[in-house]
């Protein structure tokens, strides 16, 4: 992809955690929540915010505030950014949590970014994120390199077939629960909310949101932005949980390594061995059989999908 583009990256807690660590953020992690209830959120204290992500559809993204109210006047004071680039929207939602929680150690690069954008409106902040070389290149480092870039081929743009996800941040900021959605014109206030009340109140808001969708149709997911669990367990001496957390980190690390590969070499080499094996056992007929069967499968795939 070109130097100025934002690649698609996978929506995964392991990806986002390593991404913010690479940006310089200290002692913060993302965790996927499997259930939507206040108890599982409270278990992640200190909890900085949550990110609600769902498969983007026109109606799911329709501008409804779920009982909240737009507060355009606060957009200068809190970190709110309008979405400028689809692929940047996960990173943008995470920044919307991080930048609005004073206690988070952002690291020098993001500290600088934060002070640079102080007083900007949502439009300008969105632009600034889109144009940030640091954030973009860190984001892009989690995508698979495109095999065989041919300059004559136009870069692929997202189509209806692609899973487009939209990310919305919910953060308690100075005693108010805010919804920060880059597709909305302004931050949305969901009323007074202390940090302690946040798990309960945000679940209420999310239930209102989910009720709008046909549950079978919209896939959604919830990511918590919370303190690094390893530090927590190590501080209280819970070595069993610390060990589990370390294993999880090791798995995240491994997955992120695999995400950066396009495996072209391994695929070709494996195909050689398997094809050779097929020919050894069944000769030419077996090889042609594989080609025919592949065409048959492709034909069925074609007939099933839309043209």
């Amino acid at each position, binding site marked *: 992809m070109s130097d100025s583009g934002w690649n698609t990256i996978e929506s995964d807690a392991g990806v986002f955690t390593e991404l913010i660590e690479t940006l310089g953020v200290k002692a913060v992690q993302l965790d996927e929540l499997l259930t939507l209830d206040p108890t599982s959120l409270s278990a992640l204290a200190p909890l900085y915010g949550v990110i609600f992500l769902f498969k983007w559809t026109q109606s799911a993204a329709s501008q409804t505030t779920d009982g909240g109210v737009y507060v355009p006047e606060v957009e200068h004071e809190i970190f709110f950014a309008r979405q400028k680039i689809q692929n940047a929207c996960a990173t943008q939602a995470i920044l919307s949590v991080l930048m609005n929680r004073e206690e988070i150690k952002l690291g020098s690069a993001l500290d600088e970014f934060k002070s640079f954008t102080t007083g900007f409106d949502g439009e300008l902040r969105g632009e600034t994120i889109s144009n940030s070389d640091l954030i973009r290149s860190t984001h892009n480092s989690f995508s698979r390199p495109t095999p*065989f870039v041919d300059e004559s081929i136009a870069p692929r743009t997202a189509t209806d077939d692609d899973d487009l996800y939209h990310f919305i941040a919910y953060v308690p900021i100075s005693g108010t629960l805010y919804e920060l959605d880059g597709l909305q014109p302004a931050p949305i206030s969901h009323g007074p909310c202390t940090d302690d009340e946040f798990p309960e109140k945000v679940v209420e808001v999310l239930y209102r949101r989910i009720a709008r969708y046909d549950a079978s149709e919209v896939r959604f997911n919830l990511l918590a932005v919370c303190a690094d669990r390893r530090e927590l367990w190590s501080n209280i001496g819970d070595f069993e949980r610390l060990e589990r957390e370390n294993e999880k980190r090791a798995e995240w690390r491994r997955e992120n390594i695999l995400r950066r590969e396009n*495996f072209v070499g391994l695929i*070709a080499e494996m195909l050689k061995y398997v094809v050779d094996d097929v020919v050894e056992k069944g000769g030419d007929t077996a090889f042609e059989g594989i080609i025919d069967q*592949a065409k048959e499968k492709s034909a069925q795939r074609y007939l099933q999908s*839309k043209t």
Partner: protein
Amino acid sequence: MSEDTVTLLTFKAGKVTFQPPSKHLQPLPQKGKITLQKSTDEESPLLSFIWEPRGSSKNDPSVQRDELMIFPGEAEWLPVQQCKTGRVYVLKFNSSSQRSFFWMQDAPSGEILNEISENDLKIATRINTLLEDIDAEEVDISEEQSGASGDDVEMEDLPTTNSNTQQPSSLSNLLSSIVIPSGGNHSNTGTPIHDISDAITAKQMANYVNSLDTSDAKLTNLYQFLPEEIPKTKSELLRVLQSPQFLQGINSLSQTFRSAEGTNIGQLVAHELGLPYRGEGIEAFLRAIRASIQEQKEREREGHE
């Protein structure tokens, strides 16, 4: 293709489209019919779901028929409950968000026009049975009840329906589903291979590796294609071959071949991987893989002589 197919069910139905801005289900006035066919020319018979305008000739290429091939258990035929002003059904796919909407055009005998009739229910039962099992025994629907002989419901009887609960992204795909011109045949000789895994799956690769002895030199060769940080062992190689990221790699390479139609990406790939060039596309790529093994074996033979 009529020689190779058996008609299982026919009934009158029109198409319904979705109007994204207004979120309306919009029935189209055209008189149509839906036919469920079984193809008999294959080992595993497939169910075809065909919508076509009534009275059209099958051989008229200008007539657009919609045809969907459906695997057993892949789709359901369900009434659209939100629609209170007509008898609208949706063909809903379980594996994707794809769905197609139709309105029943058989006039129910003396019943209320906008309510699902008994005959609609019978048709629905039959369709769902066939969608589950193509060879299911015919039960209770005679050609007369279900077929194209009764009176029509007219378009005016069926006002536009507002259905906010539906999802536009899937609805907008509604009837863009496969349109096969009438008379088109299903012979697949011209179909390009869509995905490498249609020919050889990651599972086959993993099975192959699994069958190798841990001391096999082939493993040592394969290890050099693993990312640097991954330990070079058989079990780690297997984990990689079974990972979603490796599958995505296969998809992505396949995608490269597909999106590069009309270019010479195959040449580039062949060059990069040191394969003989056999043309563009996945089939040519697989043939190049095959040819490279033969070349390698010949070289080895010459080396021994």
